[in-house]
């Protein structure tokens, strides 16, 4: 451990740098807060879960912030971190990570009246299994297959095939829900 022996002058400098780092972190988070809200909205069922997940993402992001390479895109880094935290949170809650393909339609979906495509799309994405949800979110956010593959750990080929199938599935669900 190389931490012994800092004198009080260095400590003050360190604490000033610490404050600079915190301010930088806060600014970046606030600039990309939409990412955190999207992930927490997609991976939580209650307001309490959403709040817990948001706190956990902020905490993990801070812990990893020193390792963040400034040449990389912060938004991509934050997305990867947030999605991993969400999946880990599900595992901790002892929820089985569902990898069954496709949207799990339920009665609620058919009873609900959707005012527009926006709300319906969000709901349909949320019905996907956890891994597909991650892929589709990144796809809809504009990430390419290679980037999605890097973030999710799935091969680019598989990403391409899955996204195509999920898109078709979503459109079918739109048709089914709106035409009965």
């Amino acid at each position, binding site marked *: *451990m*190389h*931490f012994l022996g*800092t004198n009080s002058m*260095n*400590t003050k*400098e*360190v*604490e000033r*740098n*610490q*404050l600079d*780092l*915190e301010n930088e*972190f*806060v600014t970046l*988070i*606030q600039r990309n*807060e*939409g990412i*955190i*809200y*999207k992930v927490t*909205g997609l991976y939580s069922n209650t307001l309490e879960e959403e709040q817990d997940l*948001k*706190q956990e993402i*902020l*905490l993990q992001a*801070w*812990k990893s912030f*020193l390792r963040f390479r400034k040449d990389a895109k912060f938004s991509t880094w934050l997305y990867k971190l947030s999605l991993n935290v969400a999946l880990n949170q599900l595992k901790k809650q002892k929820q089985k990570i569902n990898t069954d393909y496709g949207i799990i339609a339920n009665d609620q979906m058919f009873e609900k009246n*959707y005012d*527009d*495509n*926006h*709300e*319906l*799309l*969000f709901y349909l*994405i949320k019905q996907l299994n956890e891994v597909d949800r991650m892929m589709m979110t990144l*796809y*809809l*956010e*504009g990430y390419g297959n290679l980037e999605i593959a890097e973030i999710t750990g799935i091969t680019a080929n598989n990403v391409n095939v899955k996204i195509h199938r999920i*898109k078709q599935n*979503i*459109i079918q669900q*739109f*048709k089914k829900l*709106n035409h009965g």
Partner: protein
Amino acid sequence: MVDQSYSNFDLKKVWQEMAKKKFLNKEIEKQEIMEALRSNSQSTIVNLKAGLRTKLNWIIGFMLFFGATAGLDWLKPGSDPEHLFYFGFAGLYLAGFLITYRKYQKIDVDPIDENSILSKLKMNRQAIKSVLNIERIWGMIAMLFVFIYKVNDWANKTHDDPKHLAITVSIFLLFIVILGFIAELANRRRFGKQLKKLDENIIRLETLS
């Protein structure tokens, strides 16, 4: 009314519009972010202090046990002065408790403010490691105490049988070494990860310089 035509359905466009609408008024306040940052270090220290509190409770327990045993033995008519041994042990535990408690009190779990993060973390780490060191030293002193007492006991009773002394002392020393080893393992299990986390936080702050 939901759009009936799906031939040119642009999911990405719908998603972007959804995100703008749904999350337009949602903001993460700076306070919220800072609370998450603070909770990282604070929870580590709180957990460590809780572990030390348990340790102190055990010390009190042993102190009372040996004290009570000494008292009962002393009150027994015509008994050997074993109570001196137990009183001695109770005294050792009392001394251990007093020294440990002073260090324990120094650990500060009040919310960390912006101006003293590093120095506070270091101070807390020092206090916690002191307590664990005191426990090790205390263990060695206790071992010495038992050794001296047993030798003295042997000298007074069975001084014509050195084998008996050798066996008794060997068993006691072995027992205490094993106890010490178990205590070290228990400390590592209970405190190891948390101390490592605390050290990492300190290193994180220091590498900023």
